[in-house]
Each structure stands twice: as C-alpha cells, then as structure tokens.
C-alpha cells in the first residue's frame, strides 16, 4: 500500500513539474526577447529548394547570418513552389506557420495581412533600411500604409533566345512584332519550334500572354485595368488586339503544339536541348538556362505597333519574405528578414532593388547582365496577373486563357470573360 501511495505521489509531482515546465517556456516566450544566453530559434520556410537557381545563394546567406549572430539560429526548410502556394495558406490559417516565410506580395499576401497574420515591420525599418531601397520597391508589400514584408529584388520576364536556332533558319532575332512573325515563319519552315511554352501549367503560358498584352496595350493601361482603376477596361480594343496576336502565333504553330502536354520543366529542358528558338520566362531562370550548350541571349517581348513602349516590362519586386504574427521573436525575425533580403539580392538571380547592392557582372551568367542592361531604362512594369488578381478573378482569367489557347472560345468571347473581372 505504502509503495502504491509513494508511486501516486511521484506521478503527481512529475505531472505538476511537466505542467510548470510548459508554462515557464510559454512565459519566457511571451517576453519576446531571448534572455541572457538563450538562443532565439527561427524557422524559415521558403521556395528556393534544390532545383532553384537561388538555392546555393540562400544557403550561403543563412549560414553567414547564423555565424554572425550567436543568439539567433535560423533553421531553414525548403518547399516545392506550386505545392507551397497551397500549403502556406493552410499553415498561416492554422497558425502553424514558420516564424519567417517567403511569399508573394500583392493579392497573394493580402489575405494574410487582412487576417492579422503578419508582423508590421515599419518600426524595425527606421534604422536606415528604407533608405537602402529604391523608391517603390516595397509597393507589393504595403497594405493600408504599413510595410508587411521585404523584397529581395525584381524579376523580369522576357524571351530567352537560342541564337543557333535563328542562325540555322537564317532568321533575325526580333525586336518588333513583324520581325517575330517573320523569324517564326523561317524557323518553322526549317522544321524547328520558334517559341516553346507550357499551357499544362497555366501560369507559364499566362506569362507569355501577359508579356504580349503589355506590349500590345501598354503598361499604364494594363496596370489600370487589372488594378480595377478608373480609365482601365478590358473592353479597350487593344486587349482584343493582343488576344488576336496570340491567336496568330497559335494558329500558325509558332508556339509548340504539345504545349498542353508538357510541364514547365519539360519546356525548359527542351529549350536547353536546343529544340526551340525562344522560351518566355522570368529572370530567375538565368542560371538554369545558362547550363545549355549554346550562348543564351535575352530579349524583351517585341514591340507591337500602336501598343506600349519598348521599355514597358512585365515583372516586379513581388518575391518577398514576411514575419508571422505567431513568432515569439519578432525583433530577431525582422533583423533576419532585413539581412536575408539585402544579401540574397547580392547573391541571387534578382534585379537589384537595394541600392547597396552592386552586381558584379563577371560573377554572373552573361544573360543576367544583359537583362539588367535591358531593363535599366524601364518606364513601367506590369506584375504577373496571377499573383496580382485574387479569388474568382484568377479563375476567370486563367480558365478563359486556357480555353482560348485550346480554341474552345473565340478572341471576342475571351474579352467578354475578362470583362467579368471588372467591378
């Protein structure tokens, strides 16, 4: 009996001790400051995994940060890009997200902000950080006047060019729409593919289409239209013009006919194998395309008569890093975000938005330097529609584009669908 009582007492003491221990940890965390020798461990989720061209740079920046900061330890976890877009929302909604995570600005992160899931960073940025950024760099992470994330840099989309395909066909690398059509005809006649893309993954073909719209309509009007601002309308005939030009490329088989069956990875592999003249993608692909056997060139989408300026581009500083409101160490997390974004901007494949960063062209793929040069005098940018638009609007846009690419609706019906996005 005595032993039994003793055992019961022991168990009770143990349980109380465990409870007390749990409370103590919680209490310590609530203070938000790692005390004395305590190390603040920050979990960092992002999309720059093994296959990404920024992977090594990301690891280097994190390691540098960890060695420079003894009382902060960043633990990194990588995720696949497409799966991450679904996973991160669920994790944020369930308050089970990492302290710091990568995300996309504008529409993608607006929901996080509205639900109060992000830490407002303004108070941590007054140490001169804001002065290190070019004007407008944070526009996609500003919600109701507050800054909720930092960006690493700008991405720009354009055509990666395989000059050998053009040479074989005796075609000229195009700067205008007519030259694009002429070159495409020559390359097709030569039995090769002028433009390669994937409509199996909708955002890839979407990017190509959006590049075309920017040049056919002009960045200013496109921004007004997708932003649902005064003066913007899909009913403007320039939008129909853009769609018809996509139709021209499709009906002449200037875009690979198996686009619906191949993924972006396969389109990229095909381009790197020298099977196509042009591959439209974001500048993050620089390191990857440079692995091909030919000297990759880069051009913006050719100009379209009556449309936008040659210096209007698609892209923006939409890739960023935010701090979760569930973190126990907001100050440490903000410090890491500042360090990470500025330094990845230096090390990774991004067009600089940090004025402290000067890109050493010699250490970069030549095509990267080319994009920086080409976008030096950029007049305006249009962000990718699928990151900017929200909810039903993305559905309508992507479904309509997919239907048009597969010839199940006409250009006019496509415009009618887009008009449904308008308020």
């Amino acid at each position, binding site marked *: 009996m005595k032993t039994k009582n003793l055992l019961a007492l022991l168990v009770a003491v143990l349980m109380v001790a465990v409870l007390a221990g749990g409370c103590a940890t919680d209490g310590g965390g609530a203070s938000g400051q790692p005390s004395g020798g305590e190390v603040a461990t920050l979990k960092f989720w992002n999309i720059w995994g093994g296959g990404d061209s920024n992977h090594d740079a990301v690891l280097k920046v994190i390691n540098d940060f960890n060695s420079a900061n003894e009382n902060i330890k960043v633990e990194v976890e990588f995720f696949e890009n*497409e799966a991450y*877009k*679904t996973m991160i*929302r*669920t994790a*944020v*909604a369930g308050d089970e997200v990492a302290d710091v995570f990568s995300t996309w600005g504008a529409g993608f992160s607006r*929901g*996080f902000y*509205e*639900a109060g*899931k992000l830490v407002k960073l303004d108070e941590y940025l007054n140490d001169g950080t804001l002065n290190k950024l070019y004007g407008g760099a944070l526009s996609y992470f500003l919600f109701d006047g507050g800054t909720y994330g930092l960006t690493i840099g700008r991405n720009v989309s354009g055509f990666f060019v395989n000059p050998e395909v053009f040479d074989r066909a005796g075609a000229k690398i195009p700067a205008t729409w007519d030259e694009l059509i002429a070159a495409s005809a020559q390359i097709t006649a030569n*039995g090769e593919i002028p433009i390669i893309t994937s*409509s*199996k*993954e*909708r955002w890839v073909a979407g990017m190509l289409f959006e590049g075309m719209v920017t040049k056919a309509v002009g960045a200013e009007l496109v921004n007004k239209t997708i932003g649902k601002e005064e003066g913007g309308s899909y009913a403007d005939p320039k939008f129909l013009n853009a769609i018809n030009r996509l139709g021209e490329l499709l009906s002449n088989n200037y875009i690979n*006919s*198996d*686009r*619906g*069956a*191949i*993924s972006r990875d396969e389109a990229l592999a*095909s381009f790197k194998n020298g*099977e196509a003249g042009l591959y439209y993608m974001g500048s993050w692909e620089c390191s990857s395309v440079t692995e091909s056997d030919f000297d990759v060139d880069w051009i913006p989408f050719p100009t379209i008569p009556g449309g936008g300026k040659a210096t209007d581009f698609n892209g923006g500083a939409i890739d960023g890093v935010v701090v979760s409101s569930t973190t126990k160490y907001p100050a440490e997390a903000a410090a890491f975000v500042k360090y990470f974004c500025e330094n990845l901007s230096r090390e990774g494949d991004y067009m600089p938005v940090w004025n402290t960063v000067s890109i050493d062209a010699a250490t970069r793929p030549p095509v990267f330097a080319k994009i920086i040069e080409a976008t030096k005098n950029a007049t305006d940018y249009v962000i990718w529609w*699928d990151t900017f638009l*929200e*909810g*039903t609007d*993305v*559905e309508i846009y*992507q*479904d309509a584009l*997919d*239907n048009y*690419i*597969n010839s*199940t609706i006409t250009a006019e019906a496509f415009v009618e669908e887009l008009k449904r996005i308008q308020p």
Partner: protein
Amino acid sequence: MERVMKNKTAVVFFLFPSFVLFTLIIIVPVFMSAYYSVMDWNGIGAKTFVGLSNYIEMLSDTNRFLPAVLHTCFFAAASLCIQLPFSLLLALVLAAKVKGERFFLTVYFIPVVLSAVVIGQLWMRIYYPRGGLLNTLLINLGFMDKAQPTAWLGDIRTALVAVTVPILWQYVGYHMLLYYSGIKSISPDIFEAARIDGASFWQMSTRITLPLLKPILQVSLTFSVIGSMKVFDLVKVMLSDGGPSGSGEVITTLLVRRMFYPSNRYGYGSAMAILLIILCVVLYQSVGLIFRERRGER
C-alpha cells in the same frame, strides 16, 4: 461472447472509443464543411454568410464544374465496363490452375503497390509527344505523321481517355485479387461435382463461380464506383491543372484548385466537397440496393 453482447454497459464501453474517434475524424469535418459551404470565405479572413449561392454557382457552372462531374462519371463507367470485367476474367483464368499462377498474380498486383506519382511519370513518358513510347510505336508502324505527333495529354480530344487508361490499369490487379480470393474460397467439391457432370469452364464460371461470388462483386463494385468519384492523384500528376480546357478535369482536382491556390475560395470548395460526399453516399447505397434486390429475387 454472447454474455458480453448482452451486457449493454460492456457494449457501450467497447464502442465508445471508436465512436469518439469516428465522430472527431469523420462526422465533425463533414458538418464543418457543410457550414463553410454556405459562407463566402478565403480560408483566412472573415466569413460572410451567402446561403446557397455557392451551390447555385456550382451547379450552373457549365464551363468547369458540370464537365468535371461528367468526367468523373466517365471514370466510373469505364471502371464498371472495362476494368471490372477484365479483372474478373483474369481472376477466373488464374483460379483455373494456370501454370505460374503465383507469378502472374504478383505481376498483375505490382501496379497497385506503386505510388500514383511513379505511375503518372511512367505513363507520361509513354505519352510524351516527342519520342514517347506510344508515338514512336505509332510512327514506326506508319499510323502517325512524324512531323505531327499527337500530344495525348495536351489534346482536348484525347486527354481524358489518355488519363483513364493508367487509372484502370493500376487497379486491375486489386480487383483481380479480390475476385481471385473469392473464387478460391468456394469449395472445390462443387467444381468437382460439376466437372463429373460434364460442365465446361464457361458453364462452371457463369453458373457456379459468379453466383457464389456476389458478395465479393458487391465489394469490388463499391470500391470501383466510390474510387472513381475520388480519383485525384493520377489526374493531378498527369494533367496538372485539369488538362487542356479542363478536358480531363475531375471533381477533386477542380475542388483543390478552387479551394486552394489560385482561387482560395474555401466556401465554394466546401460546397463541392459536400456534393462529393452526397454523391458517394448515394452511389454506395445504390450499389447496396441493387445487390439486395438481386438477393431478394433469388
């Protein structure tokens, strides 16, 4: 055992844990989905009550949702008309003491144990437009123009059928094993008696095996129909975003795209989930009813 069953407290005691688990894991989420389905909600922010408008929108969506329901039914029909008869035939042949019975049994069952991603990748290589196995074969046999290879998974006309084949192929072994074990459990005396009476293989199959196999047939039919409703993984792997113009879209893939990225409409996605649950329950009951009636006739 009987004494335990008579003791009501014992019955409740033993059933209670699983009842709690079942309620927490199945019943509660279903009711939560039903609640979300009448809300306009992006999954994170505030919810707005919208009544049945999610259901109305869903049932009047002739562009994506209704075709997705049709495609799902197509899978079920293909499974019923092709997969099950084929599996049954294989089982009948194998159970008739074929040489290398064990070997064939294992071979037919291999696809069942492979993950959908592996099978998806495998079949994508077969269907690959440039240099894929199928196109190479067709070109060499002279059935296809080399300059215009078919993009099986990227063509509106072929995407659905192309993705149906591996789905049927994968589970043939599963249904075959069900039938096989069912046939093996029939007493050999019956077959022996029939053989003495001069019955042929065909007669034995249709007059003895099939009637005695009815309970297994019901199980297999239920799995096949409900499985078709829930098909997701292979379609997702092979067609990514529902195939060209949604020509291979099924309810589950559409549900995921509407509920999560890019639409983030949890309320609308939940309405689809509720409809899927209703569909599964109705089909399950129908299969049960058909077999009950049959048994009644007998």
